[in-house]
């Protein structure tokens, strides 16, 4: 009452001014909110959330049975992704992809040709050139042809390549025995290497690529199914 009786006091005036300002601010904010659609929507949304929560909890604030069940539940199972089972295949379909059967080459050929082949000519030629030189007497035309002959003997039988040594005896005369023995062993097929060939490599790479692609596609499909 003392305030009312003393309206001219400076404290009352200050208080009145502050009150007016506050009222004006409140009015401004209220008009702003009321006329702004987004804020109004926001407020409505919050109110709607509250209402839906109330509905979920029940009209008078009590939860429904479904809400109680949902609260204790670990959640719904994701559709599709993890629920597919591994099917047992019937026995008859099972097959194993066996590698290509390679018959081993006869064990004699690779080493025997290399080891036993060369020694034959060196053993016999020493006798042959001597004989050749002495008897037939035709060493001169033959020697220049045989360039690799280390022994330098007639007939050039000392040279490693067998077919080169064939020609000298032809010129040299009747000594044919050493060349024929060397030529009879054909070069054996090389043993299969442990490292796969390039086309095998390529096939493997393509296969792995396909597997990777399939896995990736499957995952993507699973992810899509999970998001649906």
């Amino acid at each position: 009452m003392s305030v009312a009786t003393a309206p001219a006091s400076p404290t009352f005036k200050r208080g009145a001014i502050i009150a007016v300002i506050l009222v004006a601010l409140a009015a401004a904010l209220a008009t702003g909110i009321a006329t702004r659609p987004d804020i109004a929507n926001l407020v409505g949304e919050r109110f709607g959330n509250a209402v839906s929560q109330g509905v979920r909890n029940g009209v008078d604030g009590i939860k429904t049975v479904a809400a109680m069940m949902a609260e204790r539940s670990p959640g719904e199972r994701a559709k599709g992704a993890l629920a597919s089972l591994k099917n047992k295949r019937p026995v008859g379909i099972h097959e194993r992809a066996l590698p290509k059967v390679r018959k081993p080459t006869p064990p004699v050929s690779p080493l025997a040709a290399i080891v036993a082949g060369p020694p034959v000519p060196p053993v016999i030629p020493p006798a042959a050139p001597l004989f050749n030189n002495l008897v037939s007497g035709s060493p001169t035309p033959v020697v220049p042809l045989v360039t690799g002959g280390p022994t330098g003997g007639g007939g050039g039988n000392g040279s490693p390549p067998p077919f080169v040594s064939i020609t000298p005896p032809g010129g040299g005369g009747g000594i044919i025995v050493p060349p024929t023995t060397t030529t009879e062993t054909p070069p054996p097929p090389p043993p299969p290497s442990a490292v796969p060939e390039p086309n095998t490599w390529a096939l493997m790479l393509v296969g792995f690529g396909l597997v990777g692609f399939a896995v990736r596609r499957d995952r993507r499909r699973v992810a899509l199914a999970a998001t649906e």
Partner: protein
Amino acid sequence: MRLGAATLACLALTTGAAIWLAGGRSSPIAASPAPALRIPVKVSESNVPVNGRLFLNKDQVAQAMAAGTLDRPVKSLLAVETPLHFGDYQWNDRGVSSGPIWIRVDLGTQLISVFRGGNEIGTAVIVYGGDNKQTPLGNLHILAKAKDHQSSIYDAQMPYTLRLTNDGVSIHASDVRWGAATHGCIGVPLAFAQRLFAATKVGDEVTVMPPTPVHSA
């Protein structure tokens, strides 16, 4: 002095308008996530757990039956404080008198609930049939019980089996873990299966509720 107050009021009005106009374009309030607004919830007596269970009132039961959550009146549910994880279960039959057993299996929430005389005495997380071997739905009955069952089809142990259908679908102990599915059976944790086996008898009713969201989608 009055003039000053009037000018201040006008200033306030203009600032309000300015806020509105500026916020109309880029509204920082609308962009920020709305905080969950809690309305005061009136706690009635039935929401207070008594002896570890919540007693339902008539409205709740009526609502649940109308919504299809329950197909028969239920008196109380277990008060489960935290969400159950895979392999978890609760069993509480203290003070629950004897009565008909009803097992409610909800594929949507992946839960099983055991009721005795309308009071829930046990609940657990289940695993159920995969997409290509779906669990049968509807009202079923326990046809047979087998404590140490060995499946002839899958060559697997299925302890505490409660057989539901003639083609072998059962409730039995299983490795309940996330991401698992069965060939149609309902798998429950072993300890829960043991209690369930002891509590049930042949002829008891089992209701399998469909996974509603999946079917409606």
